[in-house]
């Protein structure tokens, strides 16, 4: 298949680049090995849109974080995604930590982060009554927000697709293809070759390995696991924003936040590991999170926990993003090592990469503006948040919106059908696109129902439906047939 650009990875970085490049007349292919989006670090993170005070001035991260933040405040309407513009606090427990807040304040000013200020512990507690009485001061960042990261990634890639980009899921890039000049010709995948003069490496935790295929050993990814607790939505209002601990060398420390959908959440740990795919939570990790959560919020209601999860972020030795076009092979672009504040920075990184292509790779592809670019993308209707008249109207138009599939999050069959129309093929895909299964029963009720709808709509047997692709089938066959087959095998 011939394209102008192949993007490896459809996390928030790859998806943002795809959308940005779809503003030009380009044939774009986005490849992701997962069966649904988001899959990697973009799925399991703190869903933070950072205020921009935390990054050392002069770093690549500092360059993209504040512009990215500004872009998200606009993108939320364009892409119709939930962004809770709640602000964030960095909490200091001692004079020494308060001193550190002063440094962060200065950094914020240098980085151009608007409105950042230091407030007293009491002022913080007036706004967030459940925080620790031991907090003496806090750094307030009004522009920080919390995004629904499931929605955001899907919205971004959907917008790219509306504007002509092609998304290939379950497509694992296995190698780079080079031409006679040892420049980029495309990529090899489990689904065949994708040819393009420009290949962008947005491979997240695998971006180091992919870069090494291009002979770029200038950075190394250190997969870093972050574990989290997610609590029931009945915790809404327990806190209203994003609470950081004072950062240390290990990372930004344990945070407590209210997700864009109103769940209380806490995490992450920062455990370096070899395996980029190890997303198992651990007793030690979860204990660390709980300890950190209780330090910030002493009555953290962990009894209302609905799930624990872990993400693996693409840390680098330098601690910074690795964004550049290689001189050799020409056509290879790294958008690699994107960790926090990667979600925030992604739209700004994407814009930068478009510029990079214009400046450095003009001989390979030409960026002609796509005058038909449609910036808007509408989300699947969210029944839960609609007023009664809109619900009635919707149900009248399409009776599938008068059937609840997920009780916890009030997701209707209409939403599930719409997700399938937009490409969902697995239980997790429907979950990412509609929130069915994200509530307090974690799919206990809706998983069989979603599976039935997938089976019916896609015309595949129920026992072929998977949770998240691969070997993750829900069922192992039909009763009776299962027994007879087993008995038959035993008699042979």
């Amino acid at each position, binding site marked *: 298949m011939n394209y102008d650009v192949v993007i490896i990875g459809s996390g928030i970085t790859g998806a943002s680049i795809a959308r940005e490049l779809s503003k030009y007349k380009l044939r774009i292919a986005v490849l992701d090995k997962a069966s649904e989006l988001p899959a990697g670090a973009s799925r399991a993170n703190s869903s933070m849109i950072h205020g921009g005070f935390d990054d050392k001035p002069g770093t690549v991260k500092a360059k993209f974080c504040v512009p990215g933040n500004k872009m998200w405040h606009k993108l939320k309407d364009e892409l119709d995604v939930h962004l809770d513009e709640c602000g964030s606090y960095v909490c200091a427990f001692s004079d020494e930590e308060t001193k550190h807040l002063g440094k962060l304040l200065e950094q914020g000013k240098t980085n151009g982060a608007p409105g950042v200020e230091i407030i007293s512990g009491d002022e913080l507690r007036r706004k967030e009554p459940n925080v620790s009485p031991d907090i003496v001061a806090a750094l307030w960042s009004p522009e920080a927000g919390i995004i629904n990261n499931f929605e955001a990634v899907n919205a971004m890639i959907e917008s790219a697709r509306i504007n002509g980009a092609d998304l290939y899921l379950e497509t694992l890039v296995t190698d780079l293809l080079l031409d006679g000049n040892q420049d980029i010709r495309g990529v090899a995948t489990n689904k065949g070759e994708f040819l393009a003069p420009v290949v962008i490496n947005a491979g997240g935790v695998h971006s180091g390995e992919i870069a090494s295929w291009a002979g770029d050993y200038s950075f190394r990814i250190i997969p870093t696991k972050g574990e989290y607790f997610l609590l029931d939505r009945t915790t809404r209002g327990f806190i209203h924003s994003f609470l950081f601990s004072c950062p240390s060398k290990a990372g930004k420390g344990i945070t407590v936040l209210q997700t864009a959908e109103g769940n209380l959440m806490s995490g992450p740990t920062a455990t370096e590991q070899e395996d980029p795919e190890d997303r198992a939570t651990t007793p030690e990790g*979860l204990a660390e999170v709980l300890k950190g959560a209780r330090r910030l919020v002493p009555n953290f209601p962990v009894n209302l926990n609905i799930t624990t999860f872990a993400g693996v972020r693409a840390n680098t030795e330098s601690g910074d993003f690795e964004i550049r076009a290689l001189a050799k092979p020409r056509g290879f672009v790294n958008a690699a090592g994107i960790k926090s504040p990667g979600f925030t920075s992604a739209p700004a990184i994407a814009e930068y990469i478009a510029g990079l292509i214009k400046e450095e790779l003009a001989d390979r592809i030409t960026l002609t503006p796509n005058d038909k670019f449609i910036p808007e993308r509408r989300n699947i209707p969210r029944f839960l948040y609609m007023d009664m008249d809109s619900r*009635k109207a919707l149900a009248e138009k399409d*009776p599938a919106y008068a059937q609840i599939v997920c009780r916890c999050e009030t997701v209707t069959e209409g939403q599930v059908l719409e997700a399938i129309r937009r490409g969902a093929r697995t239980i997790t895909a429907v979950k990412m696109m509609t929130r069915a299964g994200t509530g307090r029963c974690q799919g206990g009720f809706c*998983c069989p129902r979603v599976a039935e709808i997938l089976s019916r709509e896609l015309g595949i047997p129920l026992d072929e439906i998977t949770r998240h692709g691969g070997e993750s089938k829900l*069922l*192992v066959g*039909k*009763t*009776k047939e299962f027994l007879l087959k087993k008995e038959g095998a035993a008699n042979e």
Partner: protein
Amino acid sequence: MSKKIDVLIIGAGPAGVAAGIGARREGAENVVVLERDWDLGGILQQCIHPGFGLRTFKEELTGPEYMHRFIKQAHDEGVEFRTNTMVFEIDKATNTVWTMNKERGIEALNPGAIVLTMGCRERPLGAIRIPGTRPSGIYTAGTAQRFVNMEGYMPGKRAVILGSGDIGLIMARRMIWEGAEVEGVYEVMSWPGGLRRNIAQCLDDYGIPFHLKTTVTRIHGQDRLEGVTVAQVDDHMTPIKGTERYVECDTLLLAIGLIPENELSRMAGIDIHPVTGGPVVNDLLQTTNPAVFAAGNVVIVYDLVDNVSDEGLIAGASAAKFAAGKLSGSARRIPVKGGENVRLYSPQYVTGETDATIFMRVTHPIEGACRVFAEPGLYSQRLRYARPGEMNEVKIKAEQIRNLPDLQEIVIDIQPV
């Protein structure tokens, strides 16, 4: 304009169907039961094993058989059922019930009284925070039961069962009968969650090992479950180092408890009891919203469906009285208090308007002779034992309460003798 609904019942499981019967028998004209499924009967339709209704019908029926009899009665009594109809919101200011149905669309109903009979749901994996991966193959026992008994599909080939609630025990045998293996049942407590007879007839009959004070400490597998680590726990339920064992399995079934299903109850603005997880009710099964009644597992999780049906009848009758303006607004409200060995109980208030049955569970097994009683001198009954997995009852006559006009409080407890 359709005629006014006198009593609206939410959920057509055993409690709701009985409530419909109770309301009609009490004289309510227009009694409607809403059911979100296409079929009536609730969870009992998937409980295809025998063990239901011995007290009511003097024989052991399967779940569908039990419901068949009640549904027939309800039809005979003139109860109206609306299937495929889900309540998704209750407006507490007006007691407006918002329903949805593919044919009828979204509707607002304003009944004379509401009975909540939504039953309970299973505790999910997240509630116990087991570390590890999140592959497919992890189901609550009830979800697996639905797949096997209603959809005709096998959830897996080799199962580990965590928790010893009755559904888990029943599913162990069910999986065996369908040709799967069950490696064992693991219970974190030092006593079983389910009935002894289910351990005998579902586990012992098939040689399935039952491990007390043991739990799953880790989940393994990326796509499909590949195994679990199990470990013994100490008296504080902390896993004991060195006792970990890897168990290969492709299925983990959870039978770790049931929680009353009270999303709608909260919307209706009624008080939820922190221990039962169900509405605070009096012996008329009236909640703290006078127009709202509740019965069955939505109030407190019962062992026996007979009790659920009995309570449904009471709640339906009380709701009918309320809708007809016949329920005295000035009823007494005598609080029931649980003694030191009582973990939970319901109802929490007694009015003296009716004979009351108070259901309760002990905190821990009391093996050996004991006495269940209600003070002051209202009830006393000897027991051979008391176990958390088996509910106990206290019965108080309305007359007893009427004879004690100054009664301030009733204390129930079970003590060894």
